[in-house]
């Protein structure tokens, strides 16, 4: 039953002595042992260390320390470097890589007393929308194990949905938190670019990558984000602005809140999915919010823009994986070129190679202006359109994904169809905006997500809007059968 409680409830139980962190950790480790084999959501378990960290948290509590995350278990996406623990990024390239340091996100959550149980499966180097590109095999969606959980943070999403931990970390470059959150029926937030440090997070596309949270509710996500966020001198793109107490503003009335309905997000959306969004709007109106229609004419160009910018950056970011200093190295290279080509050829999977090649192409002499520069211009247009929209409305709303979870294997051989999965989520990454997905109903017994996007640094407002929605609805309380 502990796995059904919120972070707040668990904290109270820990404080009252009803349960210790060690017991809590053992409870979740047992669940993982029992349930993970069918899901493949975790690829590294760190049970022994988790128990000892839980004991340390219990000692801290006994010494009078409190704190909302002290002794609370979590799962990190395997993209975050964890000192002394394998950090594979879902790739054969880093299958043997034991990180020698902690990412800032890991350090902050450790300092807050949260206890890592293990590391979550993910699309290789966070490139994928279905968690099928992982070297460690696909993650199954706990709502239907023939379905994908979404990606790239599919392991974190599935683990949270299956209640293998009260929360999990993720990263979102083009929707990698929001899309899997939607497809697994959990709450996921991608903060403003620069809100959470990227130090120690294996880079995919540096100008788009942002760390965030999977949780069972917006209220839980508020607690975790508060611990993760903040300026980090080790990340030049992190922003030196105070972190508000996200929990403190939860429950604020939505009277007068102006919500913009993104027209572009409804084109081609199936009627049943659209109906769920309109139901959500009714909930918001009943809470006093005002809804208006908003159009961002360049938003449909998000996908092609993203698939120039992200591969360009990834082609450069992944150059360091060369078989020289760490990670995979081919057997018996005969010379330097052979070392490079075989180590990279054998170490990377097909999707990663596809993006490295795309990125190399768009940055090449003769193509740079037509692709990379052009994409940057469109990116600017989209950003400007968002800014103009936020002059009129407080938040934008729409679906998180066009469809619910699809079959494993259905799209993996058709990259363009796969890429279109992120059609609603990519815009926020291009503009650096915070976005959040909350469960808003079911289609064919599979969860669907409602996406909220706000202006830069509006996390408090987004979390509150999500929280108020969750006070008025029960979608987020549902668990997949067998995981409740």
């Amino acid at each position, binding site marked *: 039953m502990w796995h059904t409680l919120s972070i707040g409830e668990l904290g109270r139980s820990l404080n009252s002595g009803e349960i210790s962190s060690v017991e809590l950790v053992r409870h979740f480790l047992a669940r993982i042992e029992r349930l993970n084999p069918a899901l493949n959501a975790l690829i590294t378990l760190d049970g022994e260390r988790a128990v000892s960290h839980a004991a340390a948290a219990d000692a801290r509590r006994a010494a009078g320390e409190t704190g909302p995350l002290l002794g609370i278990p979590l799962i990190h996406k395997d993209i*975050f*470097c964890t000192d002394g623990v394998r*950090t594979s*990024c879902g790739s054969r390239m*880093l299958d043997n*890589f034991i*990180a*020698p*340091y902690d*990412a800032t996100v890991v350090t902050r959550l450790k300092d807050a007393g949260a206890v890592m149980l293990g590391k979550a499966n993910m699309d290789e180097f966070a490139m994928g929308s279905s968690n099928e590109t992982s070297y460690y095999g696909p993650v199954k969606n706990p709502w239907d194990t023939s379905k994908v959980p979404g990606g790239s943070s599919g392991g974190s999403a599935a683990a949270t949905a299956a209640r293998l931990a009260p929360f999990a970390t993720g990263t979102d470059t083009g929707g990698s938190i929001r899309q899997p959150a939607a497809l697994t029926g959990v709450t996921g937030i991608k903060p403003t670019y620069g809100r959470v440090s*990227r*130090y*120690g*997070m*294996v*880079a995919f*596309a*540096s*100008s788009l990558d942002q760390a965030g949270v999977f949780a069972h509710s917006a209220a839980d996500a508020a607690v975790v984000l508060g611990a993760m966020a903040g300026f980090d*001198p*080790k*990340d*030049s*793109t992190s922003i030196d602005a105070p972190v508000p107490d996200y929990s403190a503003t939860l429950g604020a009335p939505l009277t007068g809140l102006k919500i913009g309905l993104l027209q572009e997000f409804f084109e081609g959306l199936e009627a049943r999915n659209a109906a769920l969004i309109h139901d959500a709007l009714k909930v918001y109106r009943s809470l006093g919010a005002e809804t208006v229609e908003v159009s961002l004419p360049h938003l449909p160009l998000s996908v092609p823009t993203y698939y120039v910018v992200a591969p*360009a*950056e990834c*082609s*450069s970011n*992944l*150059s*360091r*994986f*060369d078989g*020289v*200093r*760490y*990670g995979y190295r081919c057997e018996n290279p005969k010379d*330097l070129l052979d070392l*490079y080509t075989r180590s990279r050829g054998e170490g990377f999977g097909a999707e990663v190679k596809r993006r490295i090649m795309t990125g*190399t192409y768009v*940055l*090449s*002499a003769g193509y*740079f202006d037509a692709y*990379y520069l052009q994409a940057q211009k469109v990116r600017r247009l989209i950003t400007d359109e968002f800014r103009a929209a936020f002059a009129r409305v407080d938040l934008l709303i729409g679906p998180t994904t066009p469809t619910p979870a699809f079959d494993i294997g259905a799209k993996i051989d058709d990259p363009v169809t796969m890429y279109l999965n992120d059609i609603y989520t990519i815009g926020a990454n291009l503009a650096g905006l915070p976005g959040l997905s909350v469960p808003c109903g079911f289609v064919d017994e599979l969860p669907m997500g409602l996406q909220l996007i706000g202006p830069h640094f509006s996390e408090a407002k987004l979390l509150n809007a999500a929280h108020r929605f969750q006070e008025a609805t029960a979608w987020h309380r549902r668990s997949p059968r067998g995981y409740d």
Partner: protein
Amino acid sequence: MSDWELVIGLEIHAQLATKSKIFSGSATAYGAAPNSQADLVDLAYPGVLPVLNGEAVRMAVKFGLSIGATVARHSVFARKNYFYPDLPKGYQISQYELPVVKQGKLAVMLEDGTVKSIGVTRAHLEEDAGKSLHEGLAHATGIDLNRAGTPLLEIVSEPDMRSAKEAVAYMKKVHTLVRYLEICDGNMQEGSFRCDANVSVRPRGREKFGTRAEIKNLNSFRFVEKAILYEAARQIELLESGGTVVQETRLYDSDKDETRPMRSKEEANDYRYFPDPDLLPLQIDEAFIDAVRATLPELPDAKAARFARQFGLSAYDAGVLCASREIGGYFEALTAAVGAAHAKLAANWVMGELSSALNRENLDIAASRVPPQQLAGLLIRIVDDTISGKIAKEVFEAMWSENLTADAVIEAKGLKQITDSGAIGGVIDAVLAANPKQLADYRSGKDKLFGFFVGQVMKATQGKANPAQLNALLKAKLDGGA
């Protein structure tokens, strides 16, 4: 050769004298054990990020201000992508389209004394790569990443130089300047100051440039001169025999004194430059520039002009004395102690005896065995006629080797000049008496014998007779017939 004109531009790499690297906290000291100064950022571990070293920016701005350049309020770090084992990230962070320093110039004095202005197109910040080591390793290449991430200022000139000597004069000028500014130690053996030379030739009188070759990694003034001369001769020979020059990168082999192609055009890299998303654009405001400007020392040209004006020195001498901040400082301290009226004497000693003693032992002037106050003690003894200039050289040698004051040497060796007219006269009398034949010859018209008598008197006084007094007294005695 006279039908052809050389066109040369230099790209100078000056290693900035910061304590830590440009994007990491590792130390930059030279000569440490391999890979002992490379942290996770330098090793390009997964997840690490660069953080710009503000000190490197300050140094770049300092350089920009010293050449009257524009300091860009907004500049951008880009990634230059290529694979090499000593380039851990697979890209070098450098400034590409928007450098921090743009459009400056440097006045260079040529051999004939004329001054030529050489344009500096840009100066940009970048990181150095590591080193591949082949020596002492069988069938393997060692990688030392201590140098990886060391800050460099790449100073790119306009193709304004027309001879190898001009190129060397310009490079020396930049070398002097960066040391004045204390932004680079200028150590060429350790690679802290090196350059690539772009060389082309064109028929004299033609405006259009010829195709250029880039000669990489020249780390001495002599190699720059020789490499350019070789390369120009090669291109001229090629063109005169009906061939064409290929645009390519070449290496200078100092053992064979020749340049040869480094990589062919087919192997040329497409560096796929794009702005580094891990670093925000570098924004520099007026207040920062003003603060840096306030730290600028007196620059070499200004100092030389002042020396010439204040001390009545020739432009050449003033220039030599300003070759480094330390030389100028030594000269000024010396002149202050001896008196400005004797600045020329001080200049001659710094450029003469002191400079040769330093060169002999390959010492920096800051490490001189005879500090300015001590040398002043010697010059004062010349000025007050205690010793002659000739004896002073002997005293200087003793001061140098035995670390003594001038007075101590003069005292110990009894080198004090004889200025007592009676004493000098007595010696003259004795010399004349001892050489009656020469005396008679002199008086019968052999004027040249005057020198003989001076020599005899100096010999008898061990060189200590005051030369002016001796001359006057001797002349009076010889001509007076007394």
